[in-house]
Every structure is written in structure tokens, then in C-alpha cells.
């Protein structure tokens, strides 16, 4: 796999690392091993060493995959079940987002709504490989990440409608999807904000294994973010920390070439984001994000690398959003030729074609899935429509986990004991 070449220079400990999966973990009594970078300090300066050493180590996976194809005979990258699962997930994402647009224009949801049309391959390709206990951290373009992770469409749609049955009780909205049950850690409005949170979740996984001695804890965290975020400090700070401590995290860049109206090429000195991984000591991989099977292959390796305790990976998925940045964006800057080029590479159409041509399933089965998803989405809208809006009493309920944090009132009682708190009319 393309990764091993990139990692060879950065993991000289080919012997079992003291911090890796074997059970001989260091106790707190003996002196702890050096908890830091294992890269060798390069004293001789050669100006172009970066390019020179890296050539050939980071490879676009699409080429690797293409080479693989002729070698194995009945080469099917996926089984029928997997194929249908992937197809269903992507169609759900697409249908849901289309319905969101409809609902928005009908005045059922408000504010900033960012749709994921066209990028489904990334979400499906990665998240469908995760277990329930693995965590996902996203950005404001998070509806489909939530759906892929397993949050019911009803809960997401209610949240968008601002109803109390939403996954965040209507308090988060489009940009703040959270689910404790499915380990979706948000939903963040500011770009880059979620990356440290994802790093923290990965840290917890490592901590659980090494300090709390839950030896089979191998939870992986995925952090999704865009090309614009890759110019933000938090991105680099977290790449450093994740690589330094070998945290079980995968950084997934959804490079759709546009940050609202700012082209990636106009804002980034070196637009090849995957190259930034090796600078921090982790492999950087570029993959065609419009092809769910390619994404899945890369994701498999990155996630298992993290599970084995070998550390983080930076995956750049070249993808495209068919709609504007948000429903309020007129999307006038992008070249229609560019748009049509990518529309021709629609991930759902591509997968459908692959499934039919490989005789994994018939057209009728796929149509049945389409119909099923339509029903799911309709049902979600109905459910959200009929759900109640949050009552006034909900206003103060979740401000503090421990409501004593509202303090002691002039009468000597904790404010949260005031009955007006449950009515939501108390003045804090």
C-alpha cells in the first residue's frame, strides 16, 4: 500500500513500540519511555530534501488501485451487500439534502444550511467502515455525516426544523449535529474548531488503552473538514500533536476547491494538501473523492493504521459540491464548465454503473432502494412537521450540566431550585 513507503522514514521502531497494541504497557512506576517524536533530527541541510525524499512515497491512490485491478481475476472490491449498503447510504444523503433545499425554500427551516450534494462518496466511503464507538467530527456541512454515522433521518430533519425531537432538542440546528449514541461529536460553525475536539477524542482513546488499561480500546476518530480549513492554524497544530503522540485519528480533507467564493488555488501557496502530512511525520494520501470505492480503499488502510496504534493519516479527497456553499449562496463565481465536468463524475451514478456492470445487483434492486429512501425522507419530513416546538421551559435546561452553576439567589436558595426555572421564565 502506498502508506508504508511514506511511513518507513518516520517509524524506525519497526520493533513493537512500547506504546502499541501489545499488552506490555509501561506501568507508572518504571521510568516512562520518551513520549515524543521518533523522527531523526536532520542536521545536514539540503534545501530540496523535502521533494527529493518524498518523491514516490506519496502516490495518488487511484493509480495504485488501477494497477491492482488486472491482477486479481473476479476483481470485486466490494460484495453485493456492501455495494447495496454504500449505494443506499449515498442515495439517502442525496435525497435528504435535496429535501432540505425544498423545505428551506418553503420556509420550514432557516438560517445557514450547507448541503453536501456531490460529496457523498467521502462520507459514505469513510464512515461506513467505522464501528459505533468510533467518533466522527464534522463541520457545518454535517447532515450527511450524521446520516452515515447512523443518526436517524427523522432526528436530523426535526433538528433542522427546530423541533424538540431533533437530535439536539432543536438547540443546535443545521450546523451543530451531535449524537452521543452514535458518537457524532459535532457539527461546528467555525472552521477548524472541530479538529482539536477530534484530537481530544483520539487522545481519550489512547488514554483509555494506556492509562485506564482498557486494552481492547481501539476507537478511531475521523475529522472531516474542507480545503479552506487547511490554511488555519488549528489544522497544523493538531497535525503536529496527533503525529507526535500517535493518536488514532484520520484527518479527512474534503477538498471541493472552493471556500464559499474563494478558490483553493487563490488562497493556498501549495495547493497540494496531502503533501502537508509528511511534513509532520504522517502519511499524506490523495484520492479521487468522487469515487466511493477508491475512497473506501484508502479509508480502510488509514483506519486500520490508526487502530493498530501507528498514528494519524492525512487523506485529501478531491471532491466537489454541486450546489452553492449554502442555500443563501447564489453560486455565481464557479465556472459552469467546471461544474459540468464534476457532475459527469457524480459518485452515485458511478457506483450504480459499477454495481450493474459487475453484476452485483440488478437495476430493479437499485430502484427499490431509491424508492425506499424516498419514503424514509418523506417520513422524516412528516415526523418533523408533526413534532412539537420546544416549550419555553426548555430554555434554561441544558446551559449547565450541573444547574447549580446558575448560582445562589438573594434568598439563599440555588437559582435552579426556583420553580420559574422549569417554566423558563426565570431571569438569570
Amino acid at each position, binding site marked *: 500500500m502506498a502508506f508504508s513507503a511514506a511511513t518507513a522514514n518516520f517509524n524506525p521502531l519497526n520493533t513493537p513500540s512500547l506504546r502499541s497494541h501489545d499488552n506490555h504497557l*509501561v506501568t*507508572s512506576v518504571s521510568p*516512562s519511555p520518551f*513520549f515524543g517524536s521518533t523522527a531523526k533530527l536532520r542536521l545536514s541541510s539540503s534545501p530540496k530534501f523535502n521533494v527529493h525524499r518524498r518523491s514516490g512515497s506519496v502516490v495518488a491512490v487511484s493509480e495504485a488501485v488501477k494497477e491492482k485491478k488486472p491482477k486479481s481475476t473476479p476483481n470485486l472490491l466490494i460484495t453485493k451487500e456492501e455495494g447495496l449498503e454504500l449505494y443506499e447510504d449515498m442515495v439517502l444523503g442525496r435525497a435528504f439534502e435535496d429535501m432540505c433545499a425544498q423545505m428551506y425554500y418553503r420556509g420550514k427551516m432557516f438560517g445557514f444550511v450547507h448541503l453536501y450534494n456531490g460529496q457523498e462518496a467521502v462520507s459514505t466511503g469513510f464512515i461506513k467502515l467505522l464501528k459505533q464507538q468510533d467518533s466522527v*467530527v464534522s463541520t457545518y456541512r454535517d447532515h450527511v455525516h450524521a446520516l452515515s454515522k447512523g443518526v436517524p433521518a427523522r432526528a436530523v430533519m426535526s433538528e433542522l426544523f427546530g423541533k424538540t425531537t*431533533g*437530535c*439536539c*432538542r432543536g*438547540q*443546535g*440546528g443545521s450546523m*451543530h449535529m*451531535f*449524537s*452521543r449514541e452514535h458518537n457524532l*461529536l*459535532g*457539527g*461546528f*460553525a*467555525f472552521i477548524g*474548531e472541530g*479538529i*482539536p*475536539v*477530534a*484530537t*481530544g*477524542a*483520539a*487522545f*481519550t482513546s*489512547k*488514554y*483509555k488503552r494506556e*492509562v*485506564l488499561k482498557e486494552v481492547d480500546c481501539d476507537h478511531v476518530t475521523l475529522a472531516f473538514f474542507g480545503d479552506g480549513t487547511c490554511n488555519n*492554524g*488549528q489544522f497544523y*497544530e*493538531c497535525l503536529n*500533536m496527533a503525529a*507526535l503522540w500517535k493518536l488514532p485519528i484520520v484527518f479527512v480533507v474534503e477538498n471541493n476547491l472552493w471556500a464559499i467564493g474563494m478558490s483553493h488555488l487563490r488562497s493556498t501557496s501549495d495547493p497540494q494538501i496531502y503533501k502537508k502530512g509528511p511534513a509532520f511525520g504522517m502519511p499524506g494520501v490523495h484520492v479521487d473523492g468522487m469515487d466511493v470505492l477508491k475512497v473506501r480503499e484508502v479509508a480502510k488502510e488509514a483506519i486500520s493504521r490508526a487502530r493498530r496504534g501507528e498514528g494519524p493519516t492525512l487523506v485529501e479527497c478531491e471532491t466537489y459540491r454541486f450546489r452553492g456553499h449554502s442555500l443563501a449562496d447564489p453560486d455565481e463565481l464557479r465556472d459552469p464548465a467546471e461544474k459540468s465536468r464534476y457532475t459527469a463524475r457524480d459518485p452515485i451514478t458511478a457506483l450504480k454503473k459499477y454495481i450493474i456492470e459487475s453484476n452485483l445487483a440488478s437495476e430493479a434492486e437499485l430502484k427499490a432502494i431509491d424508492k425506499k429512501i424516498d419514503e424514509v425522507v418523506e417520513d422524516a419530513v412528516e415526523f418533523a412537521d408533526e413534532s412539537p416546538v420546544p416549550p419555553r421551559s426548555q430554555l434554561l*435546561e*441544558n*446551559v*449547565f*450540566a*450541573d444547574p*447549580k*452553576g446558575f*448560582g*445562589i*439567589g*438573594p*434568598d*439563599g*436558595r*440555588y437559582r435552579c431550585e426556583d420553580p420559574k426555572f422549569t417554566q423558563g421564565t426565570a431571569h438569570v
Partner: protein
Amino acid sequence: MSLKFFAHFLFIFQVYISVFLLIIHLQFHFFEIAFLFYFFAGAKPMAAIFQGVGAAATLSSSPSNSFDSNNSVFSPLTSFSVRRGASFAVVRSDGILNLNPKGRRAQQLISNAVATKADSAASSSSSKPGHELLLFEALQEGLEEEMDRDPRVCVMGEDVGHYGGSYKVTKGLAEKFGDLRVLDTPIAENSFTGMGIGAAMTGLRPVVEGMNMGFLLLAFNQISNNCGMLHYTSGGQFTIPIVIRGPGGVGRQLGAEHSQRLESYFQSIPGIQMVACSTPYNAKGLMKAAIRSENPVILFEHVLLYNLKERIPDEDYICNLEEAEMVRPGEHVTILTYSRMRYHVMQAAKTLVNKGYDPEVIDIRSLKPFDLYTIGNSVKKTHRVLIVEECMRTGGIGASLTAAITENFNDYLDAPIMCLSSQDVPTPYAGTLEEVTVVQPAQIVTAVEQLCQ
């Protein structure tokens, strides 16, 4: 005239002069006469005043602080008021006797309805010896005890591990608990604070240290957006039991950027609690309470208070995060303060007592939310409020506190609330200038005199 007459005249003149001189002499020594008078009338009151003045005097002499109302050793004034409840005379140096206009000293204050068991337990267990330590050691002790108690408690920050903390609060912890539990982070405040928040969401209880509180300005994104808000925006699904702590405040010529008071910037963030410690006792108590709390708590320490020495109880105790601390009960004026200014206030209190005032000093401790019960009780008693803080004038804790008191207790005030804060000036390096940017005891004395006219 005969010699006899002259002799008589001289004698009378001598007597007259002597009596005159005697009267003049007596006026200068009236103080002593009065003392003798009261000595026979009831020496105890007088002795108590001198004792009290003496106790206040020890406060300013050295940084060591043996004066603490929560401690089992009560101040002489307090203990006197509990036992005697008698009136006393305030004697001023011009010799004018003046009985206390309010008459009886107040009864023991209504104990706070929400006082935790721990606080009262400490005061009743005066039989245990306790141990003496410095404030940073108290913080370390609290942290270590909580880390022993719960394996999910971990520390993150710059130089907290191998270096032992830039103020030695985490000294020895990395050797004991390992490099992962006491994590030395790279210099990336925003990211490691966010990492702490992510870890808190997924089950750990991190304590994030800002090497200096000012550095947490870089972490403002994470503290404002994620720390306070995620519990709410996730509909209550994720709790963030994080503690963010570090030293702040004006030190000794540390320069403008290392002398910042961030409590004013953070106070508007919904969903967080802020506390400020000022003595080894409450430092340890607040540290433990903050770690045990399910809410995100920001614990403000002060650079100059780390070497305060105090005797604290041996047994486990916590200080309630939402309560204020009564430092010195009084009658004339309520002085609200926190952190280092507490010591300036107590120094001023010594002067004030000498001048005949009886200030009530409250260390508010909880900067967000305010303990309006303790504060309210005090305002209802004294009717005059002076706030002394190190925060900036504009938009500081004092400003919020003034608003809160005016809103809730306006009817009880006899005078407008006075607020002494630091000047709205970047703290200068020069010592003479730095001194005047913060509130000094002389200003506090003047303010009280002005307030009590």
C-alpha cells in the same frame, strides 16, 4: 506691701500655675486617663479592640496569612463578638470617646442556607492539627488527591510534566502518574484547549493549565465556542467537565501582556463557571470542587499569591464553587473583593479599624455566578458597598457586580456603590507606574471614609 503678702501671692500664683499646667498636662494624657477609667468600668472591651487591632496588624507584616474565617482558629474580633456581644467604646486619638452608634455588635451571621457540610465540618474539627503549606502546594495537593481518586483526571499544559509547572503546581505529578496523564503539550493553546474539550466530551476529566492566564486569549475560540456552549448545542448530550486554570493578575513588573486579568473577558460566556482562589485553604478546596464539578470551570489564580502560607485541615474538604467567603464581619461598610486585592483590603482594614470604622470584608470567590445571598445579607446590614478589584474598570467584574447589586438590593443602599478597579491602562513595566495602576490600601481607606460620611 509687705513681704508676707508677696509670699502669699507667689504661693497662690505657683498653685495656679501648677494647676494650669496640670490641666494642660492632663489633656495630653487624657487617652491614658480614659483608659484607666474604662479599666475599672470594663477592661475586656478595650482589650479586645487592641487585640483586634493587633491581629489586623499582623496581616500586613508578612505574606503569611493566619487569618481565615473558615479556619478553626477564629479571629479575636469574631470570637469576641460571639462570646460577649457587649458594646464597646471606640477611642480615637483625639481623646474623644464615642460609643459605637450601632450599639450591640451583630449576632453571629445567618449561616448560609446552602453551606456545604464540608465547610462547616472544617470549622468544627478544630481538634485535628492540620498541616502548613504554601498556596501552590495546596493546589498541587488538591490536584494530586483528585488524580488519585479518579483515574480519568488528567492534566494538560505547557511544561506541566517534566518541568513541574512554571509555578510548580504540578511538580512531581508526571513522575507519579506518567507522561500521558500529565501531558506536556506543544505551544498551541487553542488546540490543546480544544483537545481538552474533546477529551472531556468523550469521558475524561482534564485540567488544562494556561502557563499564564493571558495565553488563554489564544484559546478564546475554544473556550467561548466549545467549552461553554457544547453542552447546550448538543441538547445536553455531552458534558464538558473541564477545569481551565492558570495564574493571572498584575505581578511584579512582568509587563503588559503578562499582567492581564481575563476574568472580564470570559464572564459573558454562557455555560461556564469562574472562581478565583486567594488562600491556600480555598485554593485546594476550589481546585477539588472544580475537578469534581460537571460544569466547565475556570479557576483564576494569582501570580503573587503562590507563596502564601497557611495551615489547612488534613481531612478531605471542598469549597463550594458558588459561595462567597466572609473574611471579616463588620457593621459600617461592605467591601467586596477577590484574589490579591483581598490582602490590600485587609491591610486597609487595619488602618480603618484604627480610625474607627468597622468594615465587613467578603471575598466573593465565585466570579460567575455571584453569590447574591452572602452579598445581599451584607448589604442589608451595612447599606454601603465598596468593590475593590484588580480587574479593569471597563466591563470588569466590578461593573457586573455593581449592576447585580443595584438590581437586587437598591432599596438597601444608603449611598451609591463605589467600585475601585485597576486603571484602563496596559500595565506599565516601571514599578512606580505599575503600582498606581492597581488599587492600593490608601485608596481603599479614602474610599471607605468617603462612603461613610
